[in-house]
């Protein structure tokens, strides 16, 4: 049973504020690119190389890693940076919280109850859907330049115009699709 929305909202608001007060707004989805870059660079080491001309000191033959003076290339070369460690810590924090509340019940580990009510018990079906959804979500987040954390929450709390544009897109697609797909209650 989650926290009531007042306590939960206060805790969430304080974390997002603390991030801006102490360093910078919260964001997550860029780190999928950084991890991809780390894996890619491990497989073929010329993906990120040091550069004297790039603003960050690193460059990449990949146009995306190379953009903005190679700032993503630099983070691939130095994973021990704020944003990457932030995401690892986020996972540790969630894991700790779940462990303290007794963990996720076995019946929930492959799919939520509302999925089962609408699409049945097939684990393969759920995994295929989750895989494709993950692909769409991260392709979309990188195209948009941010995700639910970076654009929607951090963006709207700063009155960023881009945050409102993003939220409009996400809910214009998300609400009708969820209404269509999940008609049966869990």
């Amino acid at each position, binding site marked *: 049973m*989650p*926290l009531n*929305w*007042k306590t*939960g*909202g*206060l805790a969430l608001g304080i*974390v997002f504020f603390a991030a*801006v*007060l102490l*360093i910078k*707004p919260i964001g*997550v*989805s860029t780190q*999928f690119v950084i*991890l991809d870059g780390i894996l*890619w660079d491990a497989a073929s080491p010329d993906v990120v190389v040091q550069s004297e001309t790039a603003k960050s000191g690193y460059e990449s033959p990949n146009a*995306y890693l190379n953009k903005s003076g190679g700032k993503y290339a630099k983070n691939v070369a130095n994973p021990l*940076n*704020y944003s990457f*460690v*932030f995401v690892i*810590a*986020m*996972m*540790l924090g*969630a894991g700790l*919280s779940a462990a303290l509340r007794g*963990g996720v019940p076995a019946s929930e580990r*492959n799919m939520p*109850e*509302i*999925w089962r009510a609408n699409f049945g018990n097939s684990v393969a079906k*759920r995994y295929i859907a989750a*895989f494709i959804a*993950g692909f769409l*979500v*991260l*392709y*979309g987040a*990188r195209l*948009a330049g*941010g995700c*639910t954390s970076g654009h929607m*929450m951090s963006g*709207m709390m*700063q*009155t960023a*115009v*881009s945050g409102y544009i*993003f939220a409009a*897109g996400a*809910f214009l*697609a*998300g*609400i009708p*699709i*969820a*209404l269509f797909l999940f008609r049966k*209650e869990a």
Partner: protein
Amino acid sequence: MQHILLALLIGGAFGFVLDRIGATNPGYIIKMLNLSNLHLMKTILAGIGIASVLTFGGLMTGLVDPGHLSVKTAYIGVFIGGLLLGTGFAVAGYCPGTGLTAAATGRWDGLVFVIGGLLGAAAYMGSYAWVKTTGVLDHIAGGKATLGTIAGTKYPALLEGVPGEAIGLVLGVAFIVIAVLLPASLKSSGVAEPAE
């Protein structure tokens, strides 16, 4: 080193809170999007509102360094990307942050979502040069714009001359009011759990 400690502290707190508000449970995300249980929506709206009031209050009193703000660029791709993200968000009940944290709590479908996500991000890396040629990344609405003018920043304002701090405070309060007024469920047939 201090940055790494902050990352551990704030990141850890963020993950802990995401789990405690139910955001690592895709069931709550799906029920928020199909409007049957708006508990998580109320939580998120309250969170944005409280963060906004604290941030703009902090900017006005000098507690918050305006240099810590980071406003993202507006372009058509932000909207298209939002549509794509919203689609996967509804199907899986995960977004990037909640997918990662759900995997960390022991949800296998969360891990599968993350693997799909790594591939989606790689596909964007591969197609970025082409996407750029389509023009969907060209700036609109002033680019890195905020609604009002925020002192100490160079962000262009959509409503030029209107103090951005005041807009931030007013909208922050508005988000909180919406969170309070929003019913626990918008589906008459929905058997939503009580809001508190």
